[in-house]
């Protein structure tokens, strides 16, 4: 029950964040919203695991957290240097 309340709060926050991501006048607004959505998804996942009684899936939350920051930094690095380290060709093979 208490997890359901927290899930509702996180869901409402996610809705607001998606609104910002859709409205966002600049790319940075959207990126900020994407970062926030990542955090929200992690918390939602953890809370959902507790609510259904199987909280063993937090590894996925950890994965989300890492991917979240990797994605954000990749985009930002692109903005800063105009490339992703070595340039696009190498990245595509990965």
């Amino acid at each position, binding site marked *: 029950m208490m997890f359901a309340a927290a899930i509702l709060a996180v869901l409402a926050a996610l809705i607001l964040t998606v609104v910002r991501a859709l409205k966002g006048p600049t790319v940075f607004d959207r990126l900020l919203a994407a970062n926030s959505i990542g955090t929200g998804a992690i918390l939602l996942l953890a809370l959902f695991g507790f609510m259904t*009684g*199987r909280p063993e899936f937090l590894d996925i939350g950890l994965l989300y957290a890492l991917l979240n920051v990797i994605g954000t930094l990749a985009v930002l690095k692109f903005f800063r240097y105009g490339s992703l380290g070595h340039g696009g060709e190498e990245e*595509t093979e990965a």
Partner: protein
Amino acid sequence: MTVFSPLIDHFNYFIIIFLMVSGLYVVVARGNMIKKLVGLMLFQTSVYLLYLSPGKILGGTPPIIDENFQIYSNPLPHVLILTAIVVGVATLALGLALVLRINEEYGTIEEDEIFAAGDEDK
């Protein structure tokens, strides 16, 4: 209640079809190659959901056997979709490589400009 219950029961299918149709629309209507690929991704993910949603059982848990639980969701769609996701990223990579090649050949990734350039060559 009787009018709305089928709508609520099938809500996820409606969303899936909306995603699928918007993916189709993006692929058909937009000329930009990268946007077309994003549309393709939309279509793919809608198919993933279409497979996964009938396999869910209300009150079930993920199919990892544990003696505390009796009801599990159907594991078979998960396996199929796992394969599909990996194949999907492989096709995405191939498509992006093709886009790069096209960009190098024609200097653009817009479909119309590519067609125009092709006509000039003849």
